[in-house]
């Protein structure tokens, strides 16, 4: 037997393994949520837009809702904002904000300046609800079905394409 056969064989196997791993790298770039298919964690947090009021996540059960984690310190959130406004205008899901580790005044100013896509904005100053949702940055968004189950998580900006091709079909029941 050729003495190079074994090393060459091993090399070929490694090339295949690395090629497959490289090809799959983009979809593994972000940490997949461990919470998909699980009930969305409940929270009761201060309401950004109603002084002294609270936002109770259970209030949104029975409807599709999109929980968007944002902060004025987050550059990409600004880029995402127009799409959130469009989603709200479309009216197929309730858009709910989770204002993550932010200043209330700055957050209110931001919404005044750019428009408010949110039906309600919960204030998570310390990031405790965010930990419950497995959040590790902003923006992140969770699509929750009427049964209160998380069906999808977006770890980045919701682009118009992502909304049209991935999230909206879920809401309309066109994908399982």
């Amino acid at each position, binding site marked *: 037997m050729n003495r190079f056969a074994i090393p060459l064989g091993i090399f070929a196997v490694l090339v295949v393994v690395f090629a497959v791993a490289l090809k799959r790298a983009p979809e593994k770039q972000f*940490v*997949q*949520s*461990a*919470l998909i298919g699980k009930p969305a964690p409940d929270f009761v947090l201060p309401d950004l837009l109603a002084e002294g009021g609270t936002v109770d996540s259970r209030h949104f059960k029975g409807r599709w809702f999109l929980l968007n984690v944002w902060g004025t310190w987050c550059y990409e959130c600004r880029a995402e904002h127009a799409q959130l406004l469009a989603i709200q205008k479309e009216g197929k899901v309730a858009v709910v904000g989770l204002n993550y*580790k932010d200043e209330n005044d700055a957050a209110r100013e931001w919404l005044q300046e750019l428009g408010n896509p949110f039906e309600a904005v919960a204030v998570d100053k*310390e*990031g*405790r609800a*965010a*930990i*419950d*949702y*497995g959040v*590790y*940055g902003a923006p992140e968004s969770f699509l929750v079905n009427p049964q209160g189950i998380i069906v999808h998580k977006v770890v980045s900006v919701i682009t118009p394409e992502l909304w049209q091709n991935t999230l909206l079909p879920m809401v309309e029941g066109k994908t399982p």
Partner: protein
Amino acid sequence: MRRAGFAVLLALVMLPALAIDKAPPLPDPVQQQRYQGLIHELRCLKCQGETVADTQAMFGEDIRRQVREMVQAGKSDSEVRQYLVDRYGQIILLRPRWSAGNAWLWLAPGIFLLGGAWIAWRILRQRRDLLATDTSEVGDEAGRT
């Protein structure tokens, strides 16, 4: 003078270490030790090369607070880990668990070791066989000019 300079330098070098975990240690030294052990085994998901213990990212700060509170509330190490895995997935554990999916991670070193041993054994046996069948005498070589 040089000594003082060295001390100042050393203090400056160590400053970042002080800045990371700003929380005061837990009153119970056993709990503090468990807390330290746990945060050194957790991955910062915002900056995936770092542990939760070593990162300055906001994420690390929040996870440290969560772990500290859970330890203080009397939760066991595995309860704390499970809590985080339920929310962030197994990737948050720097020490992978034994499961069907990552069994190869644990088995690979053993397989490579056994493979290496087998190759070494084959080479040694080949040499022994060569020696056994070698009828040439040492003198033949030595006598040549």
